[in-house]
């Protein structure tokens, strides 16, 4: 067992087994090359990884080590003792009779023991440090004739340090009470002291006054009382309102034994009114004979991390927005097409209307018909604008019920111009019983649009076969919905599939290369998957699946 001592490592204890007994020796000497293979030890220290040599007499990365050569070690195991990522010590095991003794099952047991040992070592160190602190404090108080006390007015509990017993002349074993305190106060000062204490407890203010003590042997001591008032804050009062309920629930469960420990991320209010983010690891430490059980909370200030996370989230929203805008730019042919048709209809119908009204005689019935057609065309144009506006808006992701069949139809409608221009035959295979998913409709439409436009690009230069696009929606068991876009384009190499989803990867000269990468993030934020498969024939199929549980949160 090797532990750090200051700058170096020391072998604290060594256990040796022979046929009849196990001998444990407290060594407490520095680690040398004569004790163990230093290369193995250094390696374990550096990498914090377990080093296992099945047979040191054979070839291994450590065969050149002096110790290995001279001591004929067979099985070697060097196990770092880690508390989270901190190295607390190293356990070195060696068997120089048999190789391969450290089988996985034994290593598993050793690792478990090692982690327990690490915790115990830490606790022992804390305890020893605490004892040392106490000893120093006691010595300091004795030297300066200062005694300290703690007093909880609400319950009357009082705690005295060693020196305070000394000053008040009570036996070390006596339990301090307010009554005992007043027994020592000089009769002429009792009223004054009582008033001072009352003032302090009422206002929660510090104490700072002098009074006299009258001891049983008649001697008088003059003492100066300085005390700091501590407002008994419940941790809940410090906690941000939003987290109090869950925090309380977890704490209660901890005390009732329903939980061993919990972790919570929450905000604390600071005295100056600002707030910080913390990550708390809270556990219940069982009581011992000398100490009642208590709750221990390890609190880590994660304000910076939270800030970075928020900044990242914001950047992601901006990126999603930017790619949406860029995608809409690619839709220019579609937009022009979608709007031009109804506009042409409107202008033609109105021209017809005017001519009909100025005819001799005026053709009122005909004119009425033209007006009706104009109305209908105007509404068509308005619908296109509405669909586009949703895509243009910069917005936070929302969680709503989305019908992927409907949403996909809308996207196809928006892209009709592109599809026609690209001479593409579109086929849809929508499942009838497609369940709703919970998510952000606009973001999901952005993904479908991206897949569609990518498919279009893939078929851009295809002239020897029909350009076919098949869009399919299906319900999968395991409660999820799958949408796939299949093209008959250039396809991709199976081994290059990961590259497709890389940010900034594009084969288009004016492409941003963000489409598939952003689409994947969007799908993943919906707890789904996006993947690509080459077809049996030409082209590729891009698919995504999203769970349709209604309790999914985006």
């Amino acid at each position, binding site marked *: 067992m090797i532990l750090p001592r200051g700058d170096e490592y020391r072998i604290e204890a060594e256990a040796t087994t022979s046929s009849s007994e196990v001998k444990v020796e407290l060594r407490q000497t520095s680690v040398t090359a004569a004790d163990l293979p230093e290369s193995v030890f250094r390696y374990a220290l550096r990498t914090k990884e377990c080093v296992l040599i099945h047979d040191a007499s054979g070839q291994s990365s450590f065969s050149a080590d002096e110790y290995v050569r001279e001591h004929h070690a067979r099985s070697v195991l060097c196990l770092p003792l880690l508390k989270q990522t901190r190295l607390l010590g190293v356990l070195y095991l060696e068997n120089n009779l048999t190789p391969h003794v450290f089988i996985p099952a034994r290593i598993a047991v050793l690792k478990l023991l090692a982690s327990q040992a690490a915790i115990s070592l830490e606790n022992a160190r804390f305890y020893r440090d605490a004892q040392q602190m106490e000893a120093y404090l006691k010595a300091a108080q004795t030297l300066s004739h200062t005694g300290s006390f703690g007093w909880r007015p609400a319950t009357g509990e009082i705690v005295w340090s060693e020196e305070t017993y000394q000053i008040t002349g009570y036996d070390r074993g006596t339990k301090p009470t307010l009554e005992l305190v007043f027994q020592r106060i000089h009769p002429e000062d009792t009223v004054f002291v009582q008033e001072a204490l009352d003032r302090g407890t009422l206002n929660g203010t510090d104490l700072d006054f002098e009074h006299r003590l009258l001891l049983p042997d008649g001697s008088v001591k003059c003492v100066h009382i300085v005390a700091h008032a501590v407002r008994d804050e419940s941790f809940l009062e410090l906690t941000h309102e939003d987290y109090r309920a869950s925090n309380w629930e977890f704490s209660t469960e901890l005390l009732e034994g329903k939980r061993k420990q919990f972790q919570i991320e929450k905000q604390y209010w600071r005295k100056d009114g600002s707030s910080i983010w913390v990550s708390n690891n809270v556990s219940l430490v069982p009581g011992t004979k000398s100490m009642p059980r208590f709750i221990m909370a390890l609190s880590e200030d994660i304000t910076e991390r939270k800030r970075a996370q928020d900044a990242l989230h914001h950047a992601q929203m901006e990126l999603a927005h930017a790619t949406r805008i860029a995608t809409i730019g690619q839709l220019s042919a579609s937009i022009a097409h979608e709007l*031009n048709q109804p*506009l*042409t209809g409107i202008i033609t119908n109105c021209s017809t209307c005017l001519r009909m009204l100025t005819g001799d005689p005026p053709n009122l019935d005909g004119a009425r018909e*033209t007006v009706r057609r104009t109305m209908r065309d105007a509404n068509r144009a308005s619908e296109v604008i509405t669909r586009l506006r949703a895509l243009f808006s910069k917005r936070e992701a929302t969680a709503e019920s989305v019908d992927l069949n409907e949403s996909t139809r809308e996207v196809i409608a928006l892209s009709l111009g592109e599809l026609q221009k690209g001479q593409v035959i579109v086929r849809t295979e929508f499942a009838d019983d497609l369940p709703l998913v919970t998510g952000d409709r606009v973001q999901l439409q952005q993904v479908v649009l991206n897949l569609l436009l990518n498919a279009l690009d893939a078929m851009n230069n295809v002239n020897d076969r029909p350009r076919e696009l098949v869009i399919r929606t299906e319900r999968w068991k395991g409660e999820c919905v799958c949408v796939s876009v299949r093209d008959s384009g250039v396809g991709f190499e199976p081994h290059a599939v990961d590259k497709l989803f890389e940010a900034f990867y594009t084969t288009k000269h004016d492409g941003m290369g963000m489409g598939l990468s952003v689409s994947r993030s969007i799908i993943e934020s919906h707890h789904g998957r996006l993947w690509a498969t080459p077809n049996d024939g030409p082209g590729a199929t891009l698919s995504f699946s999203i769970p349709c549980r209604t309790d999914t949160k985006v």
Partner: protein
Amino acid sequence: MKSCQERSAVERSLVAVVDDDESVRESLPALLRVFGFAAHAFSSAEEFLASDRLGETRCLILDIAMPGMTGLDLQRQLRIHGHTIPIIFITAQRDEAVRARAFEQGAAGFLLKPFSDTALLAALNTALGVR
């Protein structure tokens, strides 16, 4: 600009409209009838070719971007089969290459959507050789 009355020679000539868009198919024939033409609309080039109105069509108003056979394809097809129907193209696409090709292949007119009724009438007059 000739009005309906002055154009008695070409009155009731059949103008065919081929466009996959419903708005155009419903609005354009009405305007053509006000101009004094007979009009019939088709939703695709294939439908027009398969119809029995091909022979009597005096002028063709043709959309370019259509699924299946495009307007330019139809123009080529008609030439190959010796039809000399004047064609006025209507399209939303502002593509110079497409426009050039249309005229190379003998188009009588090329209008960008949305077009005014006067522009259409002028194109019709040019196509039908009426000055």
